[in-house]
C-alpha cells in the first residue's frame, strides 16, 4: 500500500470527535487487532483508546517511559494470539517434546511482565484472554497418541496463567473466557488466514466483534456488583404444573421426561446457593401444599432450609418481595425474580422498577441453559471468598436470631442467650481474601477506613512488625462468619492500631469489647506497654467516633480534620473481659 499512518496519527484519529471521555483503555496485542477499536467504541461509549503498534506490548508494559505509561490506562485489554505466540512449535512440533513445559514457561514470562506493570500502576486493571491455538496442525493424529502434541501449549499456558494469578493474588488481573467463546462459535468461523497474510490480522469482523464483547463483558463485571438474591416462584418454575390443582403425584419433577429439566434447574439453583447467592420464595399458594412437596416429593433437589426467606401466601408478590428485602436487610436492586407468569413479573416491576425479572422461557427444556444466561448477565463476578460460600447459612441463622430478639425480655438477656463464642486466629493466611474484602467493604464500624488488597494483607502477615487478628463469631444458631479484623503495627514496646473494623452484621452485639480486650492482653503478653488507637472520621463511620473511649482508651490528641488519637497503658487500664462472649484462640 502507498500509505502508512504513523502510529501517533492513528491514536489521534481514533479519539477524534469523542469529547468528555471518562475511561482510558489501552488495547495491546502480539498481533494486529486494530479493527477492534470500532467495535469497542460501540460498546463503551465514553472510553478513550490507546493502541500501540502490534507486538510491542512487553516493551510498553515494562518501560516506564513508554506511551502506555503516559496514557495512564484505567484498563488494559491484552489479546494474546496463541498461534503467533507459539508458531515455531506448532509448525514443526517434531523438534520439541515437552509442550506442557513450553506453555508454562511462556505463561510465567508473561506473568512477570504483568506483575511488574501492576507494581508500577497498581490502579490499572488488566484483562487477558485465555489463548486458542489452531485446532489443526501438522502433527495430526500424532497429537495425544504421542508426545508431539502442540495442543498442550494451549492447555498449559492457560492453566499456568490461572494458577499464577491465584497464587500471587493478582487481583488486578482478570481472565476473559476467549477459548470457550471460540469453542461455542467454531474456530474456522472467526479466524481467517487471508487477513493474517495481508496484515497480521488473525480474526475476521465477527471474530473482532466477539473479542470486543469478551473484553467488555469482563470489564463491566469488574465494575458492577453482582446481584445477591434470587426470588423464586414455585408452580411451573421449580416444577411443572400447579401443586394446588395437580397435587403432589402429578407435578412434573423427576429423572424422566421433562421433569428432569426442572430437576436440573433446581440443581443449578442449589449451586448458586453454594456460591453465596441467597435463595428465597415468593409464591401464591397454600403453605401446606408446598410444605408437602418439600417434605415428601423424592425428586426435590432443593430443601426447605435452602431458602433463607419463604413467603407463601395470597398477598401481592410485590408486598412479599418488600418484606423479603426488609427481613434480609438488602436492597431490592440486588434482587432477581424468576417467575413464569408475565402478569406477576409486571406487577413486581411496576412496584420496583429497579428489580430484575427476566422473561421466562416457554419451553422448560431450555430452562437450565436459560438460567446459565441469567447467571452470566446478573451474577458474574471474578472473586469468591470462603465467606461468600457460607452466606446462605449465615443469613438463615440471622433470621432465627431476630426471632430470639423478639422473645427475649431484654437486650442483655438476648446477648446471654445467644451463647456467643469469638474465635480468634492470628496471622491467618487462609483468611486473606476475606480480610481484604472486609477492608474494602466495611464503612460503618471502621476506625481508620484503610482499604487493602490481598497482597497488602499478605505483607502484614509475613512482616514481624505487624500482627493481624481475625475474628469469627459463632453462636447457638451457627457462625456469623468472619466479622472482625484488627491490624497492629509494633515498634519496640509500643503498638499502633492500624485497622480496627467489624462487619455491620454484628454491630450492636458488643463483641468489640471481647475482641479488643483479647488483643490488648495478647500485646501485653508480647511485652507491649502502650497501645495507640486512631479514629479517622468519614461520612459513614460516625457510629464509632467514641468506641475507643468506651473501650477504656484515653484521648491524647484531636487533629484539625477531626481525627483523634488515643492511648492505653496495657498494664493498668484494661477492662475485664465481657461475660456474654467466650473467647477462643485457634492456631492455624
Amino acid at each position: 500500500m502507498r500509505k502508512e499512518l504513523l502510529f501517533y496519527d492513528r491514536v489521534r484519529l481514533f479519539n477524534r470527535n469523542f469529547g468528555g471521555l471518562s475511561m482510558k483503555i489501552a488495547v495491546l496485542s502480539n498481533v494486529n487487532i486494530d479493527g477492534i477499536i470500532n467495535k469497542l467504541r460501540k460498546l463503551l461509549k465514553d472510553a478513550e483508546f490507546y493502541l500501540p503498534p502490534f507486538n510491542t506490548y512487553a516493551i510498553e508494559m515494562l518501560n516506564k517511559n513508554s506511551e502506555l505509561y503516559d496514557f495512564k490506562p484505567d484498563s488494559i485489554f491484552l489479546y494474546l494470539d496463541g498461534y503467533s505466540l507459539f508458531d515455531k512449535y506448532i509448525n514443526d512440533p517434531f523438534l520439541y517434546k515437552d509442550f506442557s513445559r513450553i506453555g508454562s514457561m511462556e505463561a510465567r514470562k508473561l506473568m512477570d511482565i504483568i506483575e511488574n506493570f501492576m507494581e508500577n500502576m497498581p490502579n490499572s486493571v488488566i484483562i487477558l484472554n485465555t489463548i486458542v491455538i489452531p485446532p489443526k496442525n501438522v502433527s495430526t493424529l500424532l497429537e495425544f497418541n504421542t508426545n508431539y502434541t502442540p495442543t498442550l501449549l494451549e492447555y498449559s499456558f492457560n492453566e499456568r496463567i490461572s494458577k499464577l494469578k491465584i497464587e500471587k493474588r493478582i487481583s488486578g488481573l482478570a481472565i476473559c473466557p476467549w477459548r470457550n467463546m471460540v469453542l461455542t462459535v467454531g474456530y474456522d468461523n472467526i479466524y481467517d488466514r487471508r487477513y493474517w497474510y495481508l496484515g497480521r490480522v488473525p480474526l475476521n469482523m465477527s471474530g473482532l466483534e466477539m473479542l470486543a464483547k469478551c473484553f467488555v463483558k469482563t470489564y463491566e463485571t469488574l465494575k458492577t456488583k453482582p446481584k445477591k438474591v434470587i426470588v423464586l416462584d414455585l408452580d411451573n418454575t421449580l416444577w411443572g404444573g400447579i401443586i394446588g390443582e395437580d397435587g403432589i403425584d402429578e407435578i412434573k419433577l423427576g429423572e424422566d421426561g421433562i421433569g428432569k429439566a426442572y430437576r436440573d434447574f433446581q440443581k443449578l439453583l442449589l449451586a448458586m446457593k453454594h456460591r453465596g447467592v441467597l435463595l428465597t420464595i415468593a409464591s401464591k399458594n397454600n403453605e401446606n401444599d408446598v410444605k408437602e412437596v418439600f417434605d415428601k416429593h423424592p425428586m426435590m433437589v432443593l430443601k426447605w432450609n435452602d431458602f433463607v426467606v419463604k413467603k407463601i401466601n395470597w398477598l401481592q408478590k410485590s408486598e412479599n418481595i418488600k418484606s423479603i428485602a426488609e427481613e434480609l436487610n438488602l436492597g431490592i436492586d440486588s434482587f432477581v425474580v424468576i417467575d413464569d407468569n408475565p402478569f406477576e413479573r409486571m406487577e413486581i416491576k411496576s412496584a420496583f422498577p429497579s428489580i430484575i425479572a427476566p422473561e421466562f422461557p416457554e419451553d422448560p427444556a431450555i430452562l437450565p441453559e436459560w438460567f446459565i444466561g441469567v447467571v452470566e448477565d446478573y451474577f458474574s463476578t471474578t472473586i469468591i471468598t470462603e465467606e461468600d460460600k457460607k452466606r446462605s447459612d449465615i443469613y438463615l441463622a440471622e433470621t432465627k436470631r431476630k426471632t430470639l430478639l423478639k422473645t427475649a425480655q431484654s437486650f442483655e438477656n438476648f446477648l446471654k442467650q445467644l451463647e456467643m463464642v469469638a474465635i480468634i486466629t492470628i496471622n491467618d493466611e487462609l483468611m486473606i481474601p476475606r480480610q481484604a474484602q472486609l477492608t474494602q467493604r466495611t464503612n460503618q464500624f471502621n476506625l481508620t477506613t484503610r482499604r487493602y488488597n490481598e497482597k497488602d494483607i499478605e505483607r502484614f502477615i509475613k512482616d514481624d512488625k505487624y500482627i493481624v487478628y481475625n475474628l469469627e463469631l459463632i453462636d447457638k444458631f451457627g457462625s456469623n462468619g468472619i466479622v472482625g479484623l484488627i491490624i497492629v503495627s509494633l515498634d519496640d514496646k509500643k503498638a499502633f492500631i492500624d485497622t480496627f473494623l467489624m462487619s455491620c452484621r454484628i454491630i450492636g452485639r458488643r463483641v468489640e469489647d471481647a475482641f479488643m480486650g483479647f488483643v490488648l492482653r495478647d500485646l501485653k503478653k508480647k511485652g507491649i506497654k502502650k497501645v495507640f488507637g486512631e479514629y479517622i472520621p468519614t461520612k459513614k463511620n460516625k457510629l464509632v467516633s467514641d468506641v475507643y473511649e468506651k473501650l477504656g482508651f484515653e484521648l491524647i490528641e484531636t487533629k484539625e480534620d477531626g481525627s483523634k488519637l488515643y492511648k492505653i497503658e496495657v498494664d493498668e487500664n484494661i477492662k475485664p473481659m465481657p461475660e456474654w462472649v467466650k473467647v477462643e484462640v485457634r492456631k492455624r
Partner: protein
Amino acid sequence: MKRKINDKIIKIIEDTFNVKINDSYEEISSDTIEEWDSLGQINLIMAIEKYFDVKFPTELIPLMDSAEKIQEQLEKMGKI
C-alpha cells in the same frame, strides 16, 4: 458524471473510518480519506465481506482501494 455509489458501501466506509460522506457521487478512496491506510483497507474489506456475505480472493483485497472498485467487484460477484 461519476457513478452513484451504493448506500450500504458508503455507510460501511463511514462506520469503519468514523467519517461523514456527504455526496455519494464524489471520489471516495484511500486518497481522499485520511484514515484509509493499509490497515484501514483490511478493516474496511472485513466489514464489506461480513455485510455482503462474500469472501474476496486474498490478492484482490489490497486492490479495492476506492468505493467504486469495491462496488465493481461486488457487482461482478453478483452481490449488488
